[in-house]
């Protein structure tokens, strides 16, 4: 492969041109890697915040049925699906809560507090008083902040739950939470047993919330559960706009990044053009020595490819280091719905490193096509004259 040695020689000898071309591509790749790592990090934060309160999958009863019967078998089946990290059953109904002269209609939900906390972080992140886990022991309830405000009730006091056809219960307030999300703050949580007593129902539930290791598996897992006859919706189906917003954002961001890289590879095209002009005589000599047109073309394609690859590797290293540094700085932003300031994360996806090195390589080779073609079409006699 003498073509490769000629290309390598140019790269080694033309240091300034090499540094400029590799620098331009490298910078573009580095910008891309950092920008993508910010995108990944934001997505990660966004997802984890979003799914602190939303399930990845919501399972509801079979068509025509009011409840999920035999839910223990179903839950075991769900647990057996790889990637499932939390399964939280709920028995939900409506109740009227009364405290002294104040009344409020609420969504009353019977849950297993440990499981609920796994799918929502309600117990860990959003309690402002008391303890979510306390509902497991007897006639106890935790209330959302909105309800607390309306009833003007305090921790440790009794509220009365009633509803037509329901068995009235007296419940001790053992916890208060505040999520900032109206829907949630108008809910109350009790144990599954308490909810069944209140509704006078057997061992049934009305829905199951599921969390997965990887949210992007939600569709696959949901369809697996649907196959059993239950209604299973992934977060994508529940919040279609959410996915669309992410897709549009990702697409436009990627488009800009690819454009940045295309512009950077103009640097390679320019370096190659200059090189072909400068090396005209040398090309003539190589032709006189018997190098054919495709060999000459290959020299310059190799060269742009190698420059692109070097740029890609350099850019990945630089981008990775900058991302790691920025990540370690733990910059924060505050959001009105988030309980704490959000740490801006820069997460480098290893696939991005590979993908953008390859993209840099492909774009650079493409940038070399025209100059390489020009070089190969030189007339040896004219070229030798310089």
């Amino acid at each position, binding site marked *: 492969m*003498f073509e490769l*040695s000629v290309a390598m*020689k*140019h790269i080694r*000898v033309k240091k300034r041109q090499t540094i400029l071309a590799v620098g331009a591509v490298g910078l573009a790749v580095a910008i891309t890697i950092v920008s993508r790592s910010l995108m990944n990090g934001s997505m990660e934060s966004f997802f984890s915040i979003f799914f602190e309160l939303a399930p990845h999958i919501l399972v509801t009863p079979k068509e025509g049925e009011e409840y999920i019967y035999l839910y223990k078998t179903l839950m075991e089946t769900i647990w057996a699906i790889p990637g499932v990290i939390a399964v939280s059953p709920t028995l939900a109904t409506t109740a009227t809560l009364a405290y002294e002269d104040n009344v409020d209609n609420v969504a009353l939900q019977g849950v297993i507090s440990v499981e609920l906390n796994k799918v929502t972080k309600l117990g860990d992140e959003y309690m402002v008083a008391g303890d979510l886990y306390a509902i497991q022991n007897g006639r106890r309830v935790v209330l959302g902040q909105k309800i607390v405000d309306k009833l003007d009730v305090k921790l440790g006091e009794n509220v009365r739950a009633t509803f037509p056809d329901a068995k009235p219960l007296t419940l001790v307030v053992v916890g208060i939470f505040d999520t900032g999300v109206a829907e949630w703050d108008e809910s109350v949580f009790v144990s599954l047993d308490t909810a069944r007593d209140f509704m006078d129902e057997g061992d049934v539930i009305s829905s199951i919330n599921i969390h997965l290791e990887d949210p992007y598996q939600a569709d696959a897992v949901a369809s697996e559960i649907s196959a059993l006859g239950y209604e299973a919706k992934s977060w994508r189906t529940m919040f279609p706009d959410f996915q669309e917003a992410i897709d549009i954002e990702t697409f436009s961001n990627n488009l800009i990044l690819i454009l940045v890289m295309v512009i950077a590879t103009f640097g390679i095209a320019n370096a190659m053009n200059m090189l072909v002009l400068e090396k005209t*005589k*040398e090309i003539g*000599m*190589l*032709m*006189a*020595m*018997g*190098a*054919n*047109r*495709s*060999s000459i073309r290959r020299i310059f394609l190799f060269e742009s490819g190698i420059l692109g690859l070097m740029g890609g590797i350099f850019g990945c290293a630089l981008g990775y280091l900058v991302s790691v540094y920025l990540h370690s700085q733990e910059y924060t932003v505050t959001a009105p719905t988030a309980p704490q300031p959000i740490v801006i994360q820069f997460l480098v996806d290893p696939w991005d490193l590979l993908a953008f090195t390859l993209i840099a390589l492909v774009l650079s080779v493409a940038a070399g096509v025209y100059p390489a073609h020009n070089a190969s079409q030189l*007339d*040896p*006699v004219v070229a*030798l004259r310089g």
Partner: protein
Amino acid sequence: MSNIIEIKNLRKIYEDGVEVVALDGMDLIIEEGEFLAIVGPSGSGKSTLLNMIGLLDTPTSGEIWLKEKNITKIDPKERARLRNRELGFVFQYHHLLPEFSAVENVMMPLLIAGVDKKEARERSITFLEEMGLGDRLGNRPTQLSGGQNQRVAVARALANHPSIVIGDELTGNLDSKSSDMVYDLLRELNREMNQTFILVTHDMKMAEKTDRILRLVDGRIVCEMLREGDGFVTRDLCELEEDHT
């Protein structure tokens, strides 16, 4: 002896704006192992003829035969292959690859021929040692004298054992001592290896070291001289004046 080159009614006309007839219906036979000089005034078509024989350029009309094969209209890939296998070019010193060392320059035709790198290096070193450049292997052209560079160029032209070696004004910018040395070297190789040498020169003293001298004027051979002992005999009518180039 067999004919290595046959040229039949070769014409080359350049046409940019004005028409220039560089070769005007030339016939020429070169035998294997000949040591031939081409002389003539500037613009007489010497380089054009060499470029045709060297497969760097194509004629407007006429035919070129190499080793009994018509190569006038072969495809570029085959031309490149023949240049690599059958021909060795010696250009002026600045026609060495400037960024490559002496040994890398000599290796290049071998690498183009597909010879493996290690073997190419060994063979190139042997050539350079024979040229008395064994201690200059790693030097680049800028680090060598004109005469040394020209010897590197000769080594490069010979590296692939071509059947024809062609040189265009190859001692044009050397002092007479260096050019004598290069000529003597070629002469010796010609006797040893029976390779064919075709050398363009405007220096009659150099030309007189060869076996046959062709004189070109306006794209035609106007005079041919053959060695006989220490002198030359003319075949056709010749006006034996010195060229002023």
